[in-house]
């Protein structure tokens, strides 16, 4: 038995048939071929799967697909400007500039959390960022450059808003 759901995905209206037990992370990866959302665990600990649901960060491995009906979803693939352009979001630029990634596996989830943190609190402190990244594990970077990247990305997002 499948159900039909309609939602806005990265700015585009999308309608899919899903098994009710499908997780959003699976729907994205398997059915919609958006493999940027990663699955790093089975206990909702790692944060590799974070996406924005109606503007708020959620772990897509913990959310059932039917919950998307009528919602707005943003994934890593929708974070940068126009599709196909190489223009990146200021947070993505900041991660590249400050070496906030190594193997890249945690990176999409980190970026989605980071953008949400910076949107919620424009004047982030180091402590805010470290605390805010509680639900995202990175095994490679030791977090230091991620923290620096998030602070820089938040500043760049502020500057862009001010313009």
């Amino acid at each position, binding site marked *: 038995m499948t159900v039909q759901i309609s939602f806005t995905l990265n700015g585009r209206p999308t309608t899919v048939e899903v098994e009710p037990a499908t997780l959003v992370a699976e729907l994205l*990866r398997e059915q919609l*071929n*958006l*493999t*940027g*959302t*990663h*699955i*790093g*665990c*089975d*206990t909702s*600990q*790692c944060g*590799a799967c974070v996406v924005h649901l109606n503007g708020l960060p959620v772990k897509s491995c913990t959310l059932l697909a039917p919950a998307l009906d009528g919602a707005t979803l943003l*994934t*890593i*693939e929708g*974070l*940068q400007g126009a599709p196909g352009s*190489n223009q*990146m979001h200021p947070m*993505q630029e900041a*991660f*590249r*500039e400050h*070496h906030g*990634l*190594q*193997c*890249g*596996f*945690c*990176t*999409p989830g980190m*970026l989605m959390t980071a953008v949400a943190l910076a949107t919620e609190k424009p004047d982030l402190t*180091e*402590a805010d*960022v*470290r*605390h805010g*990244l*509680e639900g*995202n*594990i*990175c*095994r*490679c*970077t*030791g*977090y*230091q*450059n*991620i*923290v620096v990247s998030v602070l820089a990305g938040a500043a760049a997002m502020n500057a862009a808003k001010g313009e």
Partner: protein
Amino acid sequence: MGNVIGIGASPKRKEDQRFLTGRGNYVSDIKRPGTAAGVFVRSPHGHAVLRGIDKSAALASPGVIAVLTGDDAKADGLGSLPCGWGISDAKGVPMKEPPFPMLAQGKVRFVGDMVAFIIAETPEQANAAAELLAVDYEVLHSVVGVLEAIRPNAPQLFDDVPNNICCDWELGDKAAVESAFRKAAHVAKLSLVNNRLIGNPMEPRAAIAEYEPGTDRFTLWTTSQFPHVVRFLMGALVLNIPQHKLRVVAPDVGGGFGVKQFHYGEEAVITWAAKRVMRPIKWVASRSEGYVSDRHGRDHVTEAELALDETGKFLAFRVNTLANMGGYLSTFGPNIPTNLYGPLLGGVYTTPAIYCNVKVVFTNTVPVDAYRGAGRPEATFVLERIVDVAAAEMGIDRVEIRRRNMIPKEAYPYQTPVLVQYDSGDPMGCLDGALAAADVKSFGIRKAASASKGKFRGLGYSTYVEACGLAPSRFAGRLGARGGLYESATVRVHPTGQVTVMIGTHNHGQGHETTFAQIVSDKLGVAFDNVDIVFGDTDRVQFGMGTYGSRSLVVGGAALSKATDKVIAKGKKIASHLLEAAEVDIQFEAGKFSVAGTDRMKTFEEIAGAAYVPHNYPLEVLEPGLEEQAYYDPVNFTYPGGCHIAEVEVDPETGTVTLVNYTAVDDVGTVINPMIVEGQLHGGIVQGVGQALFENAVYDESSGQLLSGSLMDYCMPRADHMPMMKVATHSTLCTHTPMGVKGCGEVGTIGSPAAVINAVVDALSHLGVTHVDMPATPNRIWRLLQNASLPVAAE
């Protein structure tokens, strides 16, 4: 477009664009048409006789295509997983090497041991069928700790391995050590445990296998740090597939840290199964599955003794270690607690006599193999802990005792009493740099401030050396390696002057696409953007041993440098003809071939073009084309080293240890890309801090169940566990690698555990605490404090 970017610069990474935009290509992202799903059925028991498997209900379950077991593998005549190192005891008796079947046969030996492989149309159907597989186990007693495993009446894993001892290995001059101990003014003793760790790269392991009947070729996509080695071990030794019929691809790999550098049974089973069912098959491990099947790390129990004279000079060091191998010998398993441990027990000190005995022991746990640092963090931990114990007992300052025993810069090359010869280093320089950067002078003020809040502050030092750039093949062969440890690179210059490099190492986070491109850009004067690095595919790359042991830049970079030199040499020959000058008069600099002392020159692009459009070209003496290949076998290990200083605050109310400052000064030789080196140091340090403070793989003694079997139970370091670290390099150049590089991937993990634990012990030393085993969790510290404060309370 683009510029030449040289050695020592920090260009932004080439690989980042795809990772930042969600366009990486990890194994689990790959989709092949018609793919079936594979699921492994794993033993729920630590130790059991496998009495029989009834497949019928599972086979009848919806969507199921096949159910394969050890009996099927046996019937197909498949080999067992090979061990890559064979060690021997002092008398030359080889280690006990029981077979490691890819699917269990006769017995299961750890929770997670593979019993069957189920292939179905979807993962859900495969999982449902797995529930229906009827496996008849006769449960036996498990033994999970090394101390228990060697007791006379302990359960035996293998009939022909008495006392579960795989090998009783030793190194060093036992008699010299004993005589030094007799003369010692003081002997420090320490018993310690090096806790078992789980690597936890964020990408779980995964594999896809496909068989093409038309060409009789297999393709295996796998999360591996060394695809060529997988092709060799799996093709030649396990499945009997000719090498040219087997392609192994490791695309983007989401972290490895060692645990993806072994040949795993899953890879062999899925490849074999793909032909049996004539369908591509995909398997993606869950994190929890990874906990019981990824190879674990460390797990030592050690007794150490350090003999000193009255001035605190080290006279001799004696170490007895029991090393846990788990249920079987993994690819490098027996090599880690022996060859990569014993020879590092000299550290940065002039200790004249060292003896080390290691009993390598089987237990009913996940096989143990190389995890970041592998053997060297264990050696550093023992040595740097006992130096602190000796200092405290003799009343000598901890920095002072280190200085008194350090190898002076001038004494390099330095031959240790345990096989290895360090070519270069400056431990004192690293120590001085770290002392200044950590502001040790004003530690007293910070300690007093903590005390005023009721907290205990401690400072801990760790100086270390590591052996990386694995390894001269001849030397490795003497130590029992069953393969060579060279590396290869091909530099392909296209007719328009752009360059593609095929290299045998693997990039899984270390930034090779950037660092190696810098080397080529620097040496050939080609724009950085015009160099691409290809790796991880046995069909595209000639050969290679992969990435582990901080060998990529050291060994792979040397092969690349050598191949690049060959390109320049051929370019000079072409230029000499085109410019009508003697070859010896041709100079190559900044991308231009010129005739010495004249303004006649050809650009690199012109030479590349001439090589492929050889209209006016010395075809009689030179082949067309501009592509060169080199293999490089190192002449020695390289020896990075350094000094780490940790500062912690302990809350006696809760037992919580907070890392408040961390400083590292490391000697990694030439730094090609400072940004990337710094990132590697950060990551390594935090893995070591994880071991010291949080991480622990815990087994239930009697059942052999892994109690820390998910991210809920195994504490991984998170962003708010760490302060901002200060890392710097203080480099001496390696004397035998082409660019002077030494390697940096593991130094952080080697230096940090001892620094952190030494700091914790320092914070608690006023209470009489002399040692704390890892991880220093709040619970462990709180208990220690309760015991420590009892006599005080009773007074």
